[in-house]
């Protein structure tokens, strides 16, 4: 009995550092990543990408997509924090994996990199569809661009794309100078879904068609409606990268030089490596991850939070926002965080000022309207975690004894009142006793 408990304690002691490495609210960067491949040769052909991931401390677990022992969770616990699906042609996953379990994986707050390619399977298309991305229905179609292709190859399906989303959070502070090489299938975004956005868009001259056959009808997808690489940040801040090209991550394109057709600039090395690395940093929460403390508010001059405010109270509001740097929580610095004092519509909208130590605060006067208000911080900066905080607080009108008792303007009335009373008294006296 003693032995057993000791050994349990011992095991847990060994497990402790392991546990602390795992994905959590305090440490949002993913650690354990499952990589699904449809061919183990991808492991070597895409080795640079995987090596950079490993060097950043990720624990990659390579599995064949049809491995019969595949499982994302065991006993209700997820085994991985992230998932990379580099298996565009897989029709069916092995084990218990299917598109729904991948959707559940994302809904549990975990991250996904999904790469399709020409002739992507229905399974992959289905997963993409769950995330608001529609791949071109024609399975043989590719993105063709006769003006911004890479001249090195002369192939108009090798796109040299440089229309990147302008977000330091997603693509890092260093600008990606060289165009990104892309060969693969086009996709469009579901217009009703406002969580998904294009990271790498095609040029206006691009279109999606089968390159080997003659174009018989106008292509479905054209121009900058075509997205090459998209990201989706779910409401629970799970992040998803969907790429139409598996080759984008390959060693060959990482290493090859690039010159965009019609452009004099020739680059020794394509932007692919930087693009893929920075994107993986974003998707695995090494960057752009914010955390907010609770909303703190109190009357001016007090420190405790009241249960109810009165109209026209002066109050102070503050919230702490921290940013994950990949290793530790750093104060978040921004000048665009706003708070709303909200009841069906915002009655007060104020930009919070920061003390550069992570505290954002402001003070304002409660409007002259009673009701159940909410302090709302809705912060959805591109590439950052969406912060959606609210705290309910009722606002009451004045109490009966909080009004002014005597108003200067009413003094004539007070005077009139008392004069009448005195006059009545005198009148009664005179009337009754005057003969």
């Amino acid at each position, binding site marked *: 009995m003693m032995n057993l408990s000791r050994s349990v304690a011992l095991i847990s002691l060994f497990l402790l550092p392991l546990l602390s490495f795992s994905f959590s609210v305090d440490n949002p960067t993913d650690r354990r990543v499952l990589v699904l491949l449809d061919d183990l040769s991808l492991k070597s052909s895409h080795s640079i990408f995987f090596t950079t991931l490993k060097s950043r401390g990720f624990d990659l677990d390579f599995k064949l997509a049809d491995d019969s022992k595949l499982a994302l969770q065991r006993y209700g616990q997820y085994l991985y924090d992230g998932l990379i699906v580099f298996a565009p042609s897989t029709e069916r996953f092995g084990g218990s994996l299917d598109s729904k379990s991948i959707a559940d994986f*994302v809904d549990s707050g975990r991250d996904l990199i999904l790469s399709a390619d020409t002739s992507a399977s229905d399974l992959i298309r289905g997963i993409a569809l769950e995330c608001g991305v529609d791949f071109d229905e024609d399975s043989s179609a590719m993105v063709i661009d006769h003006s911004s292709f890479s001249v090195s190859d002369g192939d108009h399906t090798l796109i040299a794309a440089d229309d990147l989303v302008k977000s330091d959070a997603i693509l890092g502070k260093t600008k990606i100078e060289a165009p990104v090489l892309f060969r693969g299938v086009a996709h469009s975004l579901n217009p009703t879904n406002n969580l998904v956005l294009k990271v790498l868009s095609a040029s206006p001259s691009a279109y999606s068609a089968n390159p080997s056959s003659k174009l018989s009808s106008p292509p479905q997808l054209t121009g900058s409606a075509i997205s090459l690489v998209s990201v989706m940040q779910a409401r629970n801040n799970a992040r998803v990268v969907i790429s139409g090209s598996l080759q984008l991550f390959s060693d060959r394109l990482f290493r090859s030089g690039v010159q965009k057709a019609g452009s004099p600039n020739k680059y020794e090395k394509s932007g692919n490596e930087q693009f893929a690395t920075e994107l993986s940093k974003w998707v695995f929460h090494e960057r752009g991850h914010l955390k907010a403390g609770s909303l703190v508010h109190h009357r001016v001059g007090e420190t405790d939070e009241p249960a109810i405010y009165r109209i026209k109270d002066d109050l102070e509001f503050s919230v702490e926002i921290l940013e994950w740097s990949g290793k530790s929580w750093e104060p978040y610095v921004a000048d665009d965080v706003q708070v709303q004092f909200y009841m069906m519509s915002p009655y007060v909208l104020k930009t919070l000022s920061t003390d550069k130590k992570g505290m954002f605060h402001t003070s304002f006067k409660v409007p002259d309207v009673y*009701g*159940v208000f909410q302090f709302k911080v809705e912060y959805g900066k591109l590439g950052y975690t969406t912060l959606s905080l609210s705290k309910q607080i009722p606002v009451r009108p004045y109490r009966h004894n909080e009004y002014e008792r005597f108003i200067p303007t009413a003094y004539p009335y007070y005077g009139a009142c008392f004069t009448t009373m005195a006059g009545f008294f005198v009148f009664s006296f005179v009337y009754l006793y005057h003969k």
Partner: protein
Amino acid sequence: MGGKQDPTANGSPKSESMGAKKASPDLLNSSFSFKSLKLKTKQQELLLRVSILGLVYVLAFIARLFSVLRYESMIHEFDPYFNYRTTLYLTEKGFYEFWNWFDSESWYPLGRIIGGTLYPGLMVTAALIYWTLRFLRFFVHIREVCVLTAPFFASNTTIVAYFFGKEIWDTGAGLVAAALIAICPGYISRSVAGSYDNEAVAIFALLLTFYLFVKAVKTGSLSWALGSAFGYFYMVSAWGGYVFIINLVPLYVLVLLITGRYSMRLYVAYNCMYILGMLLAMQIRFVGFQHVQSGEHMGAMGVFLLMQVFYFLDWVKYQLNDTKLFQTFLRITVTSAILVGGIALGVGTASGYISPWTGRFYSLLDPTYAKDHIPIIASVSEHQPTAWSSFMFDYHILLFLFPAGLYFCFKRLSDATIFIVMYGLTSLYFAGVMVRLILVATPAVCLISAIAVSATVKNLTSLLRTKQKVPQTGSTKGVGSSKSSSKVTLDQSQPFQKNGAIALLVGVFYLLSRYAIHCTWVTSEAYSSPSIVLAARGAHGNRIIFDDYREAYYWLRQNTPTDAKVMSWWDYGYQITAMGNRTVIVDNNTWNNTHIATVGRAMSSYEDEAYDIMRSLDVNYVLVVFGGVTGYSSDDINKFLWMVRIGGGVYPVIKEPDYLVNGEFRVDKGASPKMLNCLMYKLCYYRFGELVTEYGKPTGYDRARGVEIGNKDIKLEHLEEAYTTSNWIVRIYRVKPPTNRL
């Protein structure tokens, strides 16, 4: 006149009225035996009167206890739950907290200033009773006090009715009035144990005010007028129906002025009552300055000013001895007074200082007004025009005793009888406009009927007594109507008078006993159901209790987060806050029509449109009442057209014809597509298509409407079923958060 009659003559109507309550033999015997002790007649009469009044007092209380005995001591219906909740708050937190209470749990997110939007009379009364009992070391629960407040005040009303009857006719009429009102179904419907509503104390206050005012007019005494002003204050603090008083009293005064019955007594009574009553009424926050600013109260003010003009003219007439000069003066004064008054009213109305008449007031004067303009008033079942059957149901014999009483009143016209006639006629008109106002007419009907009964019986007994001295023989004659025959017997001296009188007395006795039986039956069968617990008869005649409401509210209380917001139609708002202790969007205090219309719009929209509305109101749960399984007909589907109308009144996107097929409201296969897919339909009939409700009928057979539903395959996208009570009467749905990835 003054109530000093022969005791025996008085005793008969008393025993008549009591005879209906199985107390007659003793009283009759005793009154006969008392005849031998002539000296103590007055004391005997007093003893009789007091004991009869005491019995009536007790009777009025116990006749209202059916529901407590049959179910349990609980609060009934909808509004009483709010009153109960506020009373609880008052006893727990004290008066000032209650007065300043801002309730953030109702009308989310607007909130409601409870202290400023209710009539506090009822709550304060119950709290005072509670505190008194506590002080006397009776440790009762506040709920018991609330349940029994209405019967207690009904008992008090009988006492006031006695004094009122005594004032307008004589003590006999007073006693009959007390007995009639004690068991009159029109009053019992609103004052059974558990119906803890404003009307419970308001009828007492109403009758008290009228009684004291009539007394003041009769005596010209300042103190009675003062009492009347305080009675009015209590009425204002208890019920919005005080508007009836503030319009009836001036109307009465006006009639007296026109008929030349102006007197100093009237001047003193009205001026004192109006001025003091107005000042006192302004202390009630909910009423505020309405007495000087609202169109409904302007009549009283106009009569007040007219009174001063009358007095002034009287004084001028006294000063000027020249009639011709006075005539000219009169003409000038009256014209200028009317002119000034008219200009003041016009300017006040145009500048917005005097608010125009409210919709409720209009709908009283014009019964069709609400239907066209204010669907929220027309939607309430107790605001419907009264059917003849409910008059019969609530008044029974009083319905034809009333005209007889009017006849007697007109025969002996005085200030007091003019008042009761006017009260009776106006209130009966309003009772015809709205079902609930039968309540206001009930005291008048009882009083006037009591005059008829008392006067008839007195005439008959005096006839019997005179004939005893000169005995005559004769055969009995068939008698038709009691009133006409009694008149005949009075006017002419016929040989068969004695027997005729006996027959008529028996007839009156029979009628009154029928009345008592009818009242008991109505009380027991119709008015003692708590409506929060439903009862039905099973196939074998056994009683089945549906306690689904409380089941659902307790589920809400125990299984939802404390700050959850529940959306339901406004009928259930008070109950959800009181029993479920959860925030509601709208409730029975229908002060904000737009907010209710928003809920109506959500209920009548498609699910995805409704979802946006519900998200904007932070709704977490939706509660619907559904009677398709049990056959409970006052459910949300039957109320649905009102939701459409009220929603459409504010949001024109909702159109009533979209939900109708050829002007017909249906839920079966022939229903309109919008009806079959709106939120309310989906929530009521979700999973209903797979249920067999009645043997030999297809699945999804709606028992409340007797049809098979038209849409059996209902899929919910943004809501999920959270709880359905055992008989499906209440169904609660959870509003899902927005999907994670879309």
